């Protein structure tokens, strides 16, 4: 099993090594990076490239580690016992499998994506240490020991909202998706919009990196925003000349709504445009 990037996903060399290391050594891969650099997409792409099933576990602030293993529905059992249902005799009927259980018992070696692990409670990663290490856990209600037949490929993404505990980090591979440079960005755009006009792309990239360089932006536009913006530019059929225009009166790029997602950022940009204009007039 080896991952070499896919048609829709441009993987840099270091990312490929990290993914392959995680596959070969059967340890979780922790992926961090700016929002919109393709962390979550990666798992889907790796699953597609290797032809294995993908099991996604999206973590929220209320998610508990136990929910990934299994949940015991005591209330329905209680209700069934009141109604005299036959089901009640087997406690296994009330055990709901979690995503990790699913991944452990999957026939083909799956990819388990634990998405946005930093959203959960601060103790969440600690509660999964043993399960991720040994790939097994115990179901107290039925006395079953669930053990992974083939160790799933575990991918974990984090947006850095919380710091992860050391013991957890020690067990993972780590990859920080750096913001792509111009060349990689060209490649990414090519992959997504193969017949987009070369000049338009090049001008758009200029504008894009300029916007990213503006100091003090709350949310810098990232790859996914660039792709959206290009799509808009194409559908609106905007001429590349408009983009090339460096007239300070028109400093705000066309359709900027796709790039700047924050009201304050738009204001900042407008203010800069205003300053540039004033500078020119004096």
């Amino acid at each position: 099993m080896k991952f070499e990037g896919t048609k829709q996903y441009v993987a840099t060399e270091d990312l490929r090594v990290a993914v392959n290391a995680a596959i070969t050594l059967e340890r979780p891969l922790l992926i961090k990076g700016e929002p919109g650099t393709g962390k979550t997409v990666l798992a889907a792409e790796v699953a597609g490239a290797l032809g294995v099933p993908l099991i996604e576990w999206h973590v929220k602030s209320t998610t508990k580690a136990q929910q990934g293993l299994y949940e015991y529905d005591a209330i329905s059992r209680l209700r069934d016992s009141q109604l005299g249902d036959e089901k009640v005799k087997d406690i296994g009927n009330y055990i709901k499998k979690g995503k990790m259980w699913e991944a452990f018992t999957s026939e083909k070696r799956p990819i388990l994506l634990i998405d946005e692990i930093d959203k959960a409670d601060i103790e969440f990663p600690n509660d999964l240490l043993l399960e991720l290490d040994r790939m097994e856990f115990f179901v107290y209600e039925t006395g079953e020991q669930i053990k992974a037949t083939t160790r799933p490929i575990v991918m974990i993404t984090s947006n850095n909202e919380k710091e992860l505990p050391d013991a957890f980090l020690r067990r993972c591979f780590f990859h920080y998706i750096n913001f792509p440079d111009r060349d990689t960005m060209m490649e990414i755009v090519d992959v997504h919009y193969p017949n987009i006009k070369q000049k338009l792309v090049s001008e758009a990239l200029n504008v894009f990196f300029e916007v990213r360089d503006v100091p003090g932006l709350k949310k810098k536009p990232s790859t996914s925003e660039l792709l959206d913006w290009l799509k808009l530019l194409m559908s609106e059929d905007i001429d590349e000349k408009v983009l090339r225009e460096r007239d300070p009166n028109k400093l705000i790029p066309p359709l900027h709504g796709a790039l700047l997602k924050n009201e304050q950022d738009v204001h900042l940009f407008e203010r800069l445009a205003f300053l540039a204009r004033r500078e020119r007039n004096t």
Partner: protein
Amino acid sequence: MFYNLFTELRSAKVPVTLKEYLMLLEGVEKNIPEYSINDFYYLARTTLVKDERNLDKFDQVFGHVFKGMEALEDVLTAQIPEEWLQALSEKFLTEEEKKMIESLGGWEKLMETLKERLEEQKKRHEGGNKMIGTGGTSPFGAYGYNPEGVRIGQEKGRHGKAVKVWDKREYKNLDDSVELGTRNIKVALRRLRKFAREGAQTELDLPDTIRATAHQGYLDIKMIAERHNKIKVLIFFDIGGSMDAHIRTCEELFSAARSEFKHMEYFYFHNCLYEGVWKDNKRRHNEVMSTWDVLHTYPHDYKVIFIGDATMSPYEITYPGGSVEHWNEEAGAMWLQRVTDIYESAVWLNPVPDKHWEYTPSIEIINQVFSDRMFPLTLEGIDNAMKELNR
């Protein structure tokens, strides 16, 4: 194998453990790098570094361990043909530049100094004006500004092909060596909790269900609201001036507190609390909120935390009109007193280490107003402050 890398990383304060080292060896054994040094670098990075802040340190150590030695040896053994250099200089140097070379004693002298320097110097060097390295004004090294510079190594470097990936050090600006991580702060802040059940009843209350069922003779399910942290916090940040040095710690505390407390309000002040506070530093001159309003808005069960270095002239606290920014009708101490009168639980966190406190009179005064409830802004200090607030 690669033991040097491991120990050097540890001495460079990159937190690597034996487990990760073994993981790297296992990866090498399973032949993941496939005999390519670049791939080995990526593998080592993905196994040994777990925080993007350490990537830059890792690159430096890696470059030092694997390239430093051999490169330096190369330079030491390389014979630079003198005539060749001289010929070059005649071709490219202007008259003025040649004169400057004479100022150093001519070519022979220059070469001699170079040899000495090579022996003197053992490590990679950047900046400065004497050693061989990059970016400086020494006559030796690459990318420098000395007109008579001798370029050593890196002939291909600038064109991209030969630059090793770890030499690019792309991760530079993410590096930080702040000791307090937000995680640790959060754990410390967690001491401040008071659980209460409020809101929608979503959880099964087992004891009450059992009691009610026994009482009624049929199943009577009782529900209860989930437990929430009920603590309410009011934070005042000193901003600007001498606090600029502590901005990083304050930011960390702020973000930790923000995610830890659901009911948190914050305000800024400058040096000492007076009749006005503000929420946005950009508009602090026109959007000032009256301190009276703040004291009236938030009830007395709020826990109050002041964060500031309390370092100022004593007049700024004790006299009306003492403020450095405006004319204050009432003394700062009066305002602080009002706050401590209304809110039973109030602490002052000070980023200045506590052993320096006694040398600053203003710190002593404020500590008195707060009846000794000033704590240093360290993990232990936060811990103690939270205990104090919880009482």
